[in-house]
């Protein structure tokens, strides 16, 4: 599904990612963990094609194609979805209108017919139930005046409607109370499928109690310093990031 080789990314001229290698196969759930400032979100945004994140080296192959050659909207239509850490507000545009416009772009890309307003609302209602959102949110402007938790739920709702092939969740769990966290997790689990891959970027192990990853990677200082199974997350929780950080800095000194 996704193969990242030696990825280097600059933000404002500073190198944040210093050579990432990561392979995600169909049906797998990967978690990227790491302390603040390690480059987790940079990885998520670079994969999504954010213009401020400049790839200086390496390649990213998505479903056999060079992802870095695609514009952000093309990546999206090809099935790459990013659940934002800080979803933006779009005043004046309703959630329902926005999401239908997006869905129809995805459908057009797969040569499917446009979904009309009535059929779409039916679909939207069904998906809103899954994340425990009041149908009234369909008529509210995108994220405008939403609480932090509502914004995150809204991201998951969009993900459920668009049914991406590769879902990247950028700290979706941060700032959520336990109920919201459970809802978000159940939304993600709902999407878990053999043909779909999920990449969870998180600071805390907490969300992994509800979404069991197949692989866990630890990102420190722009490099993946450790990879392992779900147990790795528990060990991190127990020992803290210093446990993995030390050998990393030692490694850096050697080179």
């Amino acid at each position, binding site marked *: 599904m996704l193969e990242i080789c030696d990825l280097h990314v600059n933000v404002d001229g500073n190198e944040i990612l210093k050579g990432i290698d990561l392979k995600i196969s169909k049906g797998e759930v990967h978690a990227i963990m790491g302390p603040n400032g390690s480059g987790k979100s940079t990885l998520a945004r670079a994969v*999504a*094609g*954010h*213009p*401020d994140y400049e790839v200086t080296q390496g390649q990213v192959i998505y479903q056999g194609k060079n992802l870095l050659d695609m*514009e*952000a*909207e093309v*990546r*999206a*239509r090809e099935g790459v*979805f*990013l659940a*934002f850490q800080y*979803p*933006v507000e*779009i*005043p*004046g*545009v*309703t959630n329902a*209108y*926005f*999401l239908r*416009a*997006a869905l129809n*772009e*995805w459908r057009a*890309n797969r040569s499917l017919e446009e979904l009309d307003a009535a059929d779409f609302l039916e679909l939207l209602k069904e998906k809103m139930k899954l994340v425990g959102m009041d149908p009234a949110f369909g008529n509210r*402007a995108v994220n405008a005046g939403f609480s932090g938790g509502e914004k995150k739920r809204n991201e998951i709702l*969009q993900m459920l409607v*668009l049914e991406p092939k590769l879902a990247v969740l950028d700290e979706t769990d941060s700032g959520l109370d336990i109920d919201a966290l459970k809802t978000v997790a159940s939304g993600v689990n709902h999407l878990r499928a053999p043909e779909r891959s999920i990449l969870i970027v998180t600071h805390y192990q907490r969300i992994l109690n509800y979404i069991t990853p197949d692989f866990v990677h630890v990102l420190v200082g722009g490099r993946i310093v450790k990879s392992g199974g779900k147990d790795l997350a528990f060990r991190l929780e127990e020992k803290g990031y210093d446990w993995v950080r030390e050998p990393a800095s030692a490694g850096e000194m050697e080179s």
Partner: protein
Amino acid sequence: MKEARAFIDREYKYGFVTDVEADTAPRGLNEDIIRFISKKKNEPKFMLERRLNAYRRWLQMEEPRWQNVHYPPIDYQDIIYYSAPKPAKDGPKNLEDVDQEILKTYEKLGIPLDEQKRLAGVAVDAVFDSVSVATTFKETLAKAGVIFCPFSEAVEEHQDLVRKYLGSVVPYADNFYATLNSAVFSDGSFCYIPKGVRCPLELSTYFRINTADTGQFERTLIIADEGSYVSYLEGCTAPIRDKNQLHAAVVELIALKGAQIKYSTIQNWYAGDKNGKGGIYNFVTKRGKCVGDHSKISWTQVETGSAITWKYPSVILQGDHTIGEFYSVALTNHYQQADTGTKMIHIGKNTRSTVISKGIAAAHGRNTYRGLIRALPNAAHAKNYTQCDSLLLGDRCSANTFPYIEVKNKTASVEHEASTSKISEDQLFYCKQRGISAENAVSMIVNGFCKEVFKNLPMEFAVEATKLLGVSLEGSVG
């Protein structure tokens, strides 16, 4: 905004020129030109007198300079003040007499004048340069007692109404451009809705400037008699030309007791090219007067064209319990400038006014809202609500708001809200990450921003306005 380069600079769609033989006055302005226009129109003496008075007054007036727009001095002697497609001696009496080329022009503009092809429910008066070339659905309207005809025809056939109301809202000495218009206006639409009649059709005037170096000075007068209702639409286009052209119109609305007038404009005059060359100077005076108690006047405007727009559709709330409304979307892209807004003059008791203004500035666009809310001493319990929002695209454009409030009655209340926002790189990326192109994202956000105004437009116009904004915004971010 490097991320939004997907935009293509599409050419102005209405920029073609129609090749018709025209009957044109020599360049420049003097009393002889005014006599020439008046004679062309077979006007009665009082009209000629009125024109000459206006002209003499105009000679003593100064061009206003207080507006927040910049342009080189206009040479008023280099303008052609009258141009009419031939044959126009008596004015075409029906469609068969209208030049085929002109009919084709309106077809191209999407305004077929052939009644068979018209969407039911809209009567059109088509004004080409200085004259009205066709008015549709006259018979249907006549049955209801509605008069809808070229202004010049009204001067001949409904002299009493013209004499009584012309200049009753915008006096001939009102301001520089209105006074110029009073001297040289050539045609426009006249409309009278009799007592208690709900006009069975939407009335619409379509203005087209064709001849080069011609100024268009139309005059519109709408009188809604007691208890009547009319909805009136106005559309405008012009060919692409390198030189600026002047459009100085005057519109007067009169609402008698219990009458309602809804006036909608979609202004899409040629805006000049992306470097600011050419385009129409749209210097217009529009004012309505709620003369009778419980009457209502509502202006809705979508201003996307013109190099410079200078207009303040206003309402004088003279009768008690009268209502004035102003809903506006003004878009300035490239080097366009707009200084627009409204004046709500509360004279009567329990008068109410609402002002919703949405300004959008892109590229080097300069967008100014200027509004006056005045409550006179007798305007007990007058109420105004003003909301003024600006949306910026890019960082070379500007938005300004100049609200003037004068309240002379203690029981009056005035509310003003304003906001400025910007389409951010983050918003565009968010949309793109969902598969929506930057171009569609911008038009979605802009349309969302304008929703409150668009919902006041008649259905057909609202669709048109949405499309027009999309086209006008192309090339706006990059």
